[in-house]
């Protein structure tokens, strides 16, 4: 399989993740969509690294995966905190900053 096939697969997964981010009401659902999008980016990085014969892209992927995990941990901590304050995690009810 050529590089093109991997890139198209990653693009499709990214688009599906974007759909989840745009349409989910639940904040945790939005975070799941973001995870899918970051995942698609990692596929791209690894595919480019493997086809260009340079290992630096793979090292970058290690960093990307670790940063994603930190992001997810923080995001879920914020979700739990929001739930404590507002008793809901539905994004359309979270309007604390609206004034």
């Amino acid at each position, binding site marked *: *399989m*050529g*590089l*093109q*096939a*991997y*890139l*198209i*697969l990653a*693009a*499709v*997964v*990214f*688009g*599906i*993740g*974007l*759909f*989840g981010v745009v*349409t*989910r*009401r*639940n904040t*945790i*659902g939005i*975070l*799941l*969509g973001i*995870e*899918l999008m970051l*995942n698609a980016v*990692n*596929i791209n990085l*690894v595919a480019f*690294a*493997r*086809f260009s*014969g340079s*290992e*630096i892209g*793979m*090292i970058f*992927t*290690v*960093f990307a*995966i*670790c*940063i994603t*995990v930190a*992001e*997810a*941990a*923080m995001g*879920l*901590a*914020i979700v*739990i905190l929001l*739930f*404590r304050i507002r008793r809901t995690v539905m*994004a359309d009810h979270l309007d604390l900053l609206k004034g």
Partner: protein
Amino acid sequence: MLETIGFWSLAVVLVGSALAVVLSKNLFHSVLWLALALTGTAGVFLLLEAEFLAAVQLLLYAGGIVTIVVFAIVVTERLVGERITQTNRRITAGAVTSLALIALVVHAISRQPLPTAREPLTTDLTRTIGEGILTRFVLPFELLGVLMLAAMLGAVYFARPED
């Protein structure tokens, strides 16, 4: 030949489980589908001969993230099992946006001359990654440790018991 079969089956699993993640009515099912999607990505990494990244993907994503998301759902979801609308009214707009983005990216990709074959590996990729992390990229690696510590402290601070 084997790679083609592997790629297409992984692509079907990955796209199917990704669709299930965003379309599933029950959020808990979404997380389980996400675990399958992340495992499928690990399979894609294996197909690209990046065994180390596949292992990291399984340990950190499929192990770590799925576990904490399940915890977050159990803590915040009082209505598990009940039928509440999980999608907002922008579902058509969201579908159009995503499809337009996919079409745009696929169009851009198919116009570029991209390599169709890759050279066989001459070195051990895991070894190269390890050496790279501990020599040329040692400073970002240490910074990553600081970031993880900050994230851990932040999560503990946010989730502290109410006083």
